[in-house]
């Protein structure tokens, strides 16, 4: 061969794929006209280089995309199925990620959020189910004086306020805060000012800061509202400021000063939640060490409130942590579990799409062979496959994003309780980046799988056999089986997870709460302290309201409690039997104390086990009567009757209570928490000097029919007793229980959906592979049947193949589930993380579905007509 032709051939290596052959032929033909002289051949290098660089940079890229689009458009069904599968996977991941991002990752929307901390205590020894142990007034003042590691320290307490505007009462979520509060969060009012020194001390003029929304809606965005007097809970407060739009830590709309008297600070009641802004350069650890030190000194000087023994027994210690942890405690675990779950779903979706691509690669073997023969390199083929898969994944990503945008709304509606408003969940930059990353990764992952088999292959064989080469598909065939095994395994892990959650849910449902909810409607009331004098007027109000409600048609019973079970209200204190007081320095059991009206046990169907219920006449100073729960009675007087015994707050020598009855236990803190020892006190719980009336009450009404039908009547009854009081949050008692189980039911629903999708995708994958095996073996099966093989043998052969794949997948899945189910941890109730019944049950379910998925193609195989099968060959 002439040197010029060698040269052209060598240089043609630079020319990319498809154009190479034509390029070479053009040069060869031209050179032939000049006797192949080298003189004219040198320029081929410049030409090849030009074609290569131009081709790769612009035309090549857009050509890849165009070719990929055409390839996808040629198979609309394939594209739709694969795209939808991926879009579901990516959408689910994006939706959960946007929640994870908003709740767990995004910083709080305040300046320098890293410096914001929860500044409270922990007390592991108490065994109470609360996120933090807050401050007493005296503790707060002590820390305020001594803390150097924080720039600002504030305490707050949630409150509700009845605002009178335009003659209508309006119930607002408010927060009582000390004046440092706005400095701590780092946000100042847009209008007017925050609180100044002295405004959080008794005797100061009552003031308030309005939320932006409240200012807009109730005060028509009138800037002159600053300085105006507004009636709240019967007190005329001067508005001093308006906070910026969107500012709220939970859902509060109003801030009022928390009054503390430094000369008479309360040391007993721990109800003030602390927040602080770390000093420049100070660490959480430093603040924690300092706070612990301050706590030690506080305990020394306040031994009355905090005896050394109790300090030790309760394990009370400083607890400084990022402020965000205060809000996300409950949902953190469920969110990570869900995130892991949808990750699995995406993996299964990827495996399915990779399988679809493999089938397609199989079908396109002939095309591939032709193009390779035309000079397309392995790299070119890979590029084409990748551009198809990445394009598909990006399209699925866009669709997934749209699905997620809707999904997030649904998710938030389902979400346990209401997430505080500062945790902003939505599609933002990091979510977009996440989706893009996931789409690209999945595109590359399942795009590469089908190409791995390329390369060393007998092309002429493929061409000759019309693309049905039996040897060459073996590698890819193995890949497909591997993918199916992985899908089955992943699906089983999800099935086990959702099975465990389902069993927990059933177990929670079966828990005896100790009270009934049928036919119960409930709402909350808050008596303004400025309107009602503590003592007889308070009792009188509740008695009149009870009578009004009872006289409504259809009403069967009426009762009230300062805080219903499962609503999250907490009011516990140590109590002891008078005849057997606990030694000083040893903490008596924490008893949950409630004030109730006489009808409470009846309306809630809480059984009275002994003695009698409370009466309206059981009022503080006249007759200090108490009904205790069974748990408390058994703890203090095991095996004996509690009625007639006396109990008291630990160490209180002046007041005692006589037990008049014993009521059945109720689940109070949560459905999954064991019943607490409880003491039910009358509406007035104090004595003549300090009556301690119940100013906030949950009212419960039992009606014959639909509980919510009673709301209107109850509203009128309330209005007739006091027209200024708003009815707060009317709902059914059943919904209170639902809410308490929301975290579990939320996880159950989502895990269930994920597991169902996984099962569906896994089954489709298995069905596809077995169908494919059958179609490839049709000729062989035909021959065997022609030779007299019984139908049963053929059937068993195919079924066996499917069952082997399923079996391996199930075995791997069981191992995976065994090691992963522990992550569900405290989300589970009444079932162990490795519950054999759930494991075997879900494995059996998966096996049964897999059997069905194999049965259909197996049956097709057994009906193969030998003659036709052979003719097809």
């Amino acid at each position: 061969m002439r040197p010029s032709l060698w040269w052209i051939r060598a240089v043609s290596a630079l020319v990319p794929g498809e154009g190479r052959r034509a390029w070479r032929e053009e040069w060869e033909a031209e050179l032939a006209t000049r006797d192949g002289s080298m003189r004219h051949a040198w320029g081929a290098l410049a030409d090849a280089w030009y074609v290569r660089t131009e081709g790769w940079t612009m035309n090549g890229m857009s050509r890849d995309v165009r070719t990929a689009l055409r390839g996808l458009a040629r198979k609309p069904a394939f594209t739709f199925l694969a795209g939808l599968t991926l879009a579901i996977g990516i959408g689910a991941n994006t939706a959960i990620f946007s929640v994870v991002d908003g709740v767990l990752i995004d910083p709080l929307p305040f300046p320098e959020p890293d410096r914001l901390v929860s500044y409270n205590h922990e007390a592991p020894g108490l065994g109470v189910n609360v996120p933090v142990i807050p401050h007493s007034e005296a503790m707060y003042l002590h820390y305020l004086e001594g803390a150097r590691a924080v720039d600002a320290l504030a305490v707050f307490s949630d409150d509700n306020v009845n605002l009178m505007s335009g003659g209508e009462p309006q119930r607002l979520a408010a927060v009582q805060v000390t004046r440092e509060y706005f400095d701590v969060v780092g946000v100042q009012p847009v209008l007017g000012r925050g609180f100044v020194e002295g405004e959080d001390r008794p005797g100061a003029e009552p003031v308030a800061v309005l939320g932006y929304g409240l200012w807009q809606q109730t005060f028509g965005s009138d800037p002159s509202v600053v300085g105006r007097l507004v009636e709240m809970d019967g007190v005329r407060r001067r508005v001093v400021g308006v906070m910026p739009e969107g500012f709220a830590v939970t859902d509060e709309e109003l801030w009022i000063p928390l009054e503390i008297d430094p000369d008479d600070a309360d040391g007993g009641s721990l109800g003030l939640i602390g927040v602080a802004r770390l000093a420049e350069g100070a660490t959480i650890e430093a603040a924690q060490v300092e706070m612990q030190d301050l706590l030690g000194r506080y305990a020394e000087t306040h031994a009355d409130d905090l005896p050394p023994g109790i300090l030790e027994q309760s394990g009370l210690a400083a607890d400084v942590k990022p402020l965000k942890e205060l809000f996300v405690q409950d949902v953190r675990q469920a969110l990570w579990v869900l995130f892991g779950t949808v990750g699995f779903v995406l993996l299964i979706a990827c495996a399915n799409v990779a399988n679809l691509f493999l089938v397609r690669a199989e079908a396109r073997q002939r095309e591939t062979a032709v193009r390779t023969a035309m000079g397309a390199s392995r790299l070119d083929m890979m590029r084409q496959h990748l551009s198809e898969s990445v394009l598909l994944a990006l399209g699925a990503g866009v669709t997934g994003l749209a699905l997620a945008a809707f999904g997030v709304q649904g998710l938030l509606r389902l979400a346990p309780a209401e997430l505080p408003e500062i945790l902003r969940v939505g599609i933002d930059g990091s979510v977009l980046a996440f989706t893009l990353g996931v789409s690209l990764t999945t595109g590359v992952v399942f795009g590469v799988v089908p190409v791995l088999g390329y390369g060393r292959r007998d092309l002429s064989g493929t061409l000759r056999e019309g693309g049905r080469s039996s040897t060459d598909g073996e590698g890819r065939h193995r890949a497909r089986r591997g993918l199916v095994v992985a899908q089955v395994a992943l699906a089983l892990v999800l099935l086990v997870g959702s099975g465990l959650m389902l069993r927990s849910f059933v177990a929670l449902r079966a828990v005896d709460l100790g009270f009934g909810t049928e036919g119960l409607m409930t709402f909350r009331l808050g008596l303004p302290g400025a309107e009602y004098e503590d003592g007889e007027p308070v009792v009188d109000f509740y008695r009149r309201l009870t009578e009004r409600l009872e006289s409504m048609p259809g009403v069967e019973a009426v009762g009230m409690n300062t805080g219903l079970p499962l609503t999250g209200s907490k009011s516990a204190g140590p109590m002891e039997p008078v005849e057997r007081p606990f030694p000083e320095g040893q903490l008596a059991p924490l008893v949950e104390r409630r004030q109730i009206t006489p009808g409470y046990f009846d309306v809630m169907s809480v059984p009275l086990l002994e003695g009698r219920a409370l009466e309206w006449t059981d009022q503080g100073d006249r007759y200090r009567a108490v009904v205790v729960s069974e748990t408390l009675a058994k703890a203090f007087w095991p095996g004996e009757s509690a009625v007639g015994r006396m109990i008291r707050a630990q160490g209180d020598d002046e007041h005692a209570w006589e037990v008049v009855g014993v009521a059945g236990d109720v689940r109070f803190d949560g459905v999954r928490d064991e019943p607490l020892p409880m003491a039910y006190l009358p509406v007035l719980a104090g004595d003549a000097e300090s009556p301690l009336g119940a100013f906030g009450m949950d009212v419960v009404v039992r009606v014959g029919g639909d509980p919510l039908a009673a709301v209107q009547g109850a509203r009128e009854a309330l209005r007739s007793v006091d027209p200024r009081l708003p009815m707060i949050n009317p709902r059914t008692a059943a919904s209170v229980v639902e809410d308490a189980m929301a975290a579990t039911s939320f996880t159950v629903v989502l895990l269930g959906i994920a597991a169902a999708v996984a099962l569906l995708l896994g089954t489709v994958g298995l069905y596809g592979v077995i169908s494919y095996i059958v179609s490839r073996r049709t000729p062989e099966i035909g021959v065997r049947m022609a030779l007299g093989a019984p139908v049963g043998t053929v059937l068993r052969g195919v079924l066996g193949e499917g069952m082997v794949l399923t079996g391996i997948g199930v075995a791997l899945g069981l191992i995976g589930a065994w090691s992963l189910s522990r992550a569900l941890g405290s989300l589970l109730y009444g079932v162990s993380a490795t519950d054999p019944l759930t494991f075997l049950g879900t494995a059996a379910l998966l096996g049964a579905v897999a059997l069905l998925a194999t049965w259909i193609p197996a049956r097709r195989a057994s009906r193969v007509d030998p003659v036709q099968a052979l003719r097809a060959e």
Partner: protein
Amino acid sequence: MTGTRRTGVEGIRMTQVTALVLRAVAAGYRYGFDVMDACGLPSGTVYPALRRLHAAGLLAARWEGAAEARAEGRPRRRTYELTAPGVAALTEAEVKLAHTRELLDGLAAAPSGGAR
């Protein structure tokens, strides 16, 4: 090469080389090597120019018929011809060229440069 492609002069920077190549093809030089001879430029210059003009849609390329090639006892050659945008681009280029020539002639006729 298939699919839609940008056509027209705005898709390409008209240099002396590309204008020359375009002119040669318009003059009836159909094969790459003939264009090369006509322009007196090396293949490494002519071919990239041909590619660029083709990519911009000013030239159309096709393989000559097998019968034609067989009659002459050689492999099939690739032929190039002007497209309608190519004709337009060439006209435009020639107008510009004529304008340049006028300017140059005017300069040559100026008193200081006058040899006559």
